[in-house]
């Protein structure tokens, strides 16, 4: 069973894990993910591979504790073992030298975009990273991004850090100022990705979104991850997770991701209760 080698708390809700998974560390490319299962009773959930160290054989996962499984993971510590980690899954990001690439990360989407920004930089792009979060304490990876991006623009919804506003406001500003943008790629909450697509659509800027549908196997066997792209149904785990943002039906994705909202609540409440029981 893969072991957690290192855990870092990034903020109240977000933790970074380095997990021993040598084969995945060696193989993974930017844009790919793993599916994990914490224990025998666990569910299978996809998590982006934020980074990897092939020498040490570790992969990095950045996890926001939202539902039961992610909170449970965030309560684990270095030395703990995870029942299953499988990957790398999904298609790697198509990387080339587009020229000026703008990479957009909203909230936890930043963790998804981090390795992609790096790969774009390595391929010779000028990379502008637009980093956004609800509030300052939820911003992640600022220093890491500043380490290699040509520019990092920051915004928060509440104005507690950087510009007040949404990532799309910053992007719009850049476009209006006449900056030449050749490629946009982003990840974040679904409304953000939808807004991103609408921001670039009128200007015909090639835009890619990394989608986060519900998954089970992650190998194309079940169809849980169906998304509508143009007129076609795609399986995000094998055909994606990245698609042409101008073609994606984000409303459908939003609805489908709420399929188990009731069950998620039950599971979380039960977990929190059990935790309380354990602590007191």
């Amino acid at each position, binding site marked *: 069973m893969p072991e957690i080698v290192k855990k870092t708390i990034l903020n109240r809700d977000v933790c970074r894990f380095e997990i021993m998974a040598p084969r995945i560390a060696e193989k993974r490319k930017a844009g790919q993910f793993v599916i994990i299962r914490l224990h025998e009773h666990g569910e299978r959930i996809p998590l982006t591979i934020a980074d990897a160290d092939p020498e040490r054989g570790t992969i990095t996962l950045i996890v926001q504790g939202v539902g039961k499984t992610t909170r449970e993971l965030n309560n684990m510590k270095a030395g703990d073992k995870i029942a299953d980690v499988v990957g790398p899954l999904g298609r790697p990001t198509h990387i080339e030298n587009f020229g000026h690439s703008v990479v957009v990360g909203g909230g936890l989407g930043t963790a998804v975009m981090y390795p992609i920004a790096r790969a774009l930089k390595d391929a010779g792009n000028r990379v502008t990273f637009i980093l956004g979060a609800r509030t300052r304490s939820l911003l992640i990876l600022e220093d890491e991004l500043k380490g290699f991006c040509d520019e990092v623009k920051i915004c928060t919804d509440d104005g507690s850090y950087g510009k007040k506003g949404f990532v799309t406001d910053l992007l719009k500003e850049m476009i209006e100022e006449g900056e030449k943008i050749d490629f946009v790629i982003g990840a974040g909450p679904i409304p953000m990705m939808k807004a991103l697509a609408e921001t670039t659509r009128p200007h015909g800027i090639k835009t890619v979104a990394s989608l986060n549908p519900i998954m089970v196997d992650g190998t194309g066997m079940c*169809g849980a991850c*169906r998304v509508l792209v143009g007129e076609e149904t795609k399986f995000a785990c094998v055909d994606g997770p990245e698609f042409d943002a101008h073609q994606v039906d984000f409303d459908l994705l939003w609805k*489908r991701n709420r399929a188990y909202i009731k069950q998620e609540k039950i599971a979380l409440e039960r977990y929190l209760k059990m935790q309380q029981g354990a602590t007191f």
Partner: protein
Amino acid sequence: MGERKKLSTKERLKIPRQPMPEQDPHERIKNFREVPLGYTPELAMKEAQRCLQCPDPPCVKGCPVEIDIPGFIKKIEEGDFLGAVRVIKKTNLLPAITGRVCPQDEQCEAECVLGKKFKPVAIGNLERFVADYERENNLIEIPPRESPKGKKVAVIGAGPAGLTVAADLIQKGYEVTIFEALHKPGGVLVYGIPEFRLPKSIVQKEIELLEKLGVEIVTDFVVGKTATIDELMEKEGYDAVFIGIGAGLPWFLNIPGENLIGVYSANEYLTRVNLMKAYMFPDYDTPLIESRRIAVIGGGNTAMDAARTALRSGAEKVYLIYRRSRKEMPARTEEIAHAEEEGVEFVFLTNPVEFIGDEEGRLKAVRVIKMQLGEPDESGRRRPIPVPGTEYEIEVDTAIVAIGNSSNPLLLQTTPDIETNKWGNIIVDPATGKTSKKGVFAGGDIVRGEATVILAMGDGRVAARAIDEYLQTGKW
């Protein structure tokens, strides 16, 4: 252990087919326990007396792996149950499984001479009985291993095809590693076929036996992603590879509304329930949509499994919508009967045309159209044709699409030198399982399209023999 009784043919013919004791339908839809309870030794010996020991037994020709059927039945009649299971295991490694899931009514039992005037001998029930006897009494013997050959074989996929190859080659002295994409080995036997039809502990036992023999099973390893076949052969020193990855890409109907919440592929629904144990949510983390009325679309084993699983997951009403009539349904007769006894409502000659949802994107009804049967198609079954003006809606909150699978391209995309046909199935020499790539063999559903457990095992056996020969002689 006795002698075979000296009964006349007439006396044998007088014995009725011994029914299999089963859980009561009203009770069993409240649990996931196995439905048929198995023969007692008395019932088994009685049933065995019905066999006429035909000199040129037609039943054997009906069996894809040619089990010596009268041979093992004779042993049962003599009370030598262990002897019986040994006869079977000469050609069929997993009788506890095939005894439960083989389509006997189309194979051995369809050919049995008794079937012409009476009911055929219950060959499947007898096979199951002796295999259970052996396992439940801890009499399974670990077969001997030949001395090590110093060669390594990679088996991709831990379904019946892959498990058979591994079992045969480990005994021959090869080092065998199975690479499995999921977190549990077994293939369809664990993620598809439900507990109430094939208890997972039985599959587990077979897998443990393989591990005891020395087979290494690596789960969470997606060949094509975690490593490619070329990497396994060139970098990791595997001398031969067997591909048994099954048919794992679900078909949908391609009708409007198919992406509504509540429309599942059978693969997803069954995986959630069988592999992930969603029926024990929230004790297990994987959920299912809460639902009262479920429509299953299809007429095969998968559809029956989905319908019966749906009943056990608490649905009040389960419809099974099939576009042809009962006669054409490809499922095992026993499963159709079980589904019916349990209260699944069959809606024949009917096909969905649209899924209808509410504002939240949740399924609320399926719109269907009546069909009539026209001329026979390539499969020999009469082709269903829609009858205009007969559309109506059935109110459901979950729909499970169980109309089949095609081959999953994930692995083969990374191995362009393995030839496939237009459906994406691997092309092999049926006598050896050889693919177009040197050192690589294949069998089971990835070659045949959706077929059966016994055919997958048969393919495994053929390939194992050919792999052995190839590794001994080096000749391709």
